[in-house]
């Protein structure tokens, strides 16, 4: 682990975050948007784990923060999928461009 500088790990997680952001910008399907959000959350978790391990290896703060983010991401995914299923039932489509009732 110590052969890799911290910057390389951070650059890797930044790249992963911006890949998720590219997905957010280009996708129009709710499920693929959810996948992009998961990628972004994971890149943040890698950051926390790397900071914990590189800078304060005798503490556990980064580990626990990453753990709670994973738990909240699980709750978020469950809610999002319930909303997607409900939307599909009423609109017969899960495209964000088709759900515009609350736009104005």
């Amino acid at each position, binding site marked *: *682990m110590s052969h890799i500088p911290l*910057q390389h790990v951070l650059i890797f997680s930044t790249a992963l975050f911006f890949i998720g952001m590219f997905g957010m910008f280009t996708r129009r*399907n709710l499920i693929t948007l959810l*996948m992009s959000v998961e990628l972004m959350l994971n890149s943040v978790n890698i950051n926390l784990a790397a900071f914990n*391990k590189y*800078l304060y290896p005798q503490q556990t703060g980064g580990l626990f923060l990453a753990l*709670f983010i994973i738990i909240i991401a*699980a709750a978020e*995914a469950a*809610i999002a999928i319930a909303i997607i299923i409900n939307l599909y039932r009423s609109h017969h489509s899960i495209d964000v461009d088709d759900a515009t009732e609350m736009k104005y």
Partner: protein
Amino acid sequence: MMPASAIFFYVIAAAILVTAILSVTTRRIFRAAIWLLLSLMGIAGIYFWLDMNFLAAVQIVVYVGGIVVLIIFSVFLTQGSGQSLPLPAKFRLFFSAVAVSLGLAFTIWILQGYGFLATAPEVPAVEMREIGKTMLSVQSGGYALPFELVSILLLAAMVACIAIAMKIPADKKND
């Protein structure tokens, strides 16, 4: 000559980035879910490489075993695996790529110039027993309160999921 663990990191990181790019660009939604699955498993590999075995186990159990399966379920409930998604508009693809590359370049520039603390000497991984004790400790530095809050959050999320996804019968809709 790089040591084996360094090569392992670069290989895993490249695999994660490639599968993540495929996951956000493929037009078959089921394939996007499978690429996401591979990407998340690679991230569990990164946690193993960082010597955080507990986090890696949680990553596999929650993400690979839970969230991706949930996503695949919802793909089959709403889309089916056959149809491919429409291609996004050209200008949107172009400007998204430009914005994302600029953001990436800017962040990397900041990271290169930022003076992080010196890397601490490696210590043995935190034991599982220690993690469990810290999570339920009410002393300073313990995580009992966020643990309880998160369990309430999960309960609320469960109730909300059922309430949102429940099908209301047509004759009761106007009550």
